[in-house]
């Protein structure tokens, strides 16, 4: 497809995924180009026992650095950050990360909506939020916050998603900017701003 020219700078990309998310991310994250300027935040719902190795699993496949977040970590460009299991991941002033053990939202901790809402407050129109496959409806409220803040909203085409409910819940709620297949999202990544020397 012709990649939509991103009409503005994107300094942060927030990604949420649930059931089927590991497979989707295994395709998407390696497509992030070296020299990427944006910071990338990922909330992936996983059973707690399985979730702590995400950075380890994804790092060898990715072309940009991958990290598990620790409390108060500064946010660097060109880096993929995974929410730690059983904590909410929030973007705080700075920008830096904050973690919380507040109650689950939409039965989820980490919650996609919590990440999206706090990232929207920090990055406003410079945030791109991407909601992928999953059951349930975590992320829909967050997409609405991103939309309201002027950020770019993208959902995986429900027909292609292993579980269509999550992207569909966002579509039911707001006028999402783009509904794309994983292939199209990978093309979109190619259009992201990079540092010159990369």
């Amino acid at each position, binding site marked *: 497809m012709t990649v939509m020219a991103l009409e503005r700078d994107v300094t942060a990309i927030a990604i949420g995924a649930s059931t089927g998310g590991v497979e989707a991310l295994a395709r998407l994250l390696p497509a992030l180009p070296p020299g990427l300027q944006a910071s990338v935040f990922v909330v992936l719902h996983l059973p707690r026992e399985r979730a702590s190795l995400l950075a380890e699993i994804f790092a060898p496949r990715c072309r940009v650095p991958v990290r598990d977040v620790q*409390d108060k970590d500064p946010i660097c460009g060109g880096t993929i950050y995974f929410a730690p299991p059983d904590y909410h991941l929030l973007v705080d*002033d700075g920008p830096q990360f904050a973690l919380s053990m507040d109650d689950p939202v*939409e039965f989820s901790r980490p919650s996609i909506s919590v990440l999206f809402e*706090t990232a929207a*407050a920090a990055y406003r129109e410079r945030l791109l939020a991407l909601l992928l496959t999953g059951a349930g409806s975590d992320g829909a*409220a967050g997409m609405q916050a991103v939309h309201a803040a002027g950020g770019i909203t993208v959902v995986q085409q429900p027909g292609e998603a292993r579980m269509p409910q999550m992207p569909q819940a966002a579509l039911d709620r707001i006028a999402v900017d783009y509904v794309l297949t994983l292939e199209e999202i990978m093309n979109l990544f190619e259009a992201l701003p990079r540092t010159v020397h990369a």
Partner: protein
Amino acid sequence: MNAEVAPAINDVELRLLIEAVYQTYHYDFRHYARASLRRRLAAAMVRFDCRTLSELQSRLLHESQVFAELLEYMTVQVSDMFRDPSYFRALREKVVPLLRTYPSLKIWVAGCSSGEEAYSMAILLREENLLDRSLIYATDINPTALRRAEAGIYDAAKVPDFTRNHRLSGGRSSLSDYYSAAYDRVILDKSLRRNIVFSDHSLATDSVFAEVQLVSCRNVLIYFDRDLQSRALDLFYDALCRRGFLGIGLRESLRFSSHVDAFAEFAREDRIYQKVGGQ
């Protein structure tokens, strides 16, 4: 919190509200991490049916009951017994053998909220035959949470998780030895409480009150900014005896402590540190 979009929080109003709370009620949230505070206050605005934080501020200034309830939104969190079993296993296997060498033990569970961690500690010490010569200080700033902690009554639905955690932590007995069930609640054995002192203490405004061999403060620092983290860690440093132990949450760090070099990693994966130097 439900799936409604949180009300927008204006930063000027946020600062004013925090200042109003501090000056009126002497609770100091000025160095709490803003992102969490914003979310919690957004939830409180929905609860109190306020469209703006200024409206909420006006109510909390004029209605003390509103503040009492707001404090719940700003501070309370629910924990589990033996949350992160590997932490308790590390305490049991690596720290307890050293604690045993002291004739009497003092342990500080800082930010105990509704008490799950303090009771977990008491059960662990009982299993290790140390509880009788131990005193656990369990502190928090929230009076309602402290009352709940003192009551030692928990939702029975959480017991299977507690039991599983306890077993994974290397528990030597059955958790059911320590509670009795009534309807949908369990009440913890009162004898566990004999060696726990629940009290009001603020890591933001109060000072050290005792010398202790172990401080356990987990998932409390995440709610603080770097300055307040540093203050809290200074308190822990001052409270700890020579070679005393500090346990923090699995995703927390000592980076912002002015004493960062004074704590040596003792059980790295489980975030247990030992004080070096000092007295």
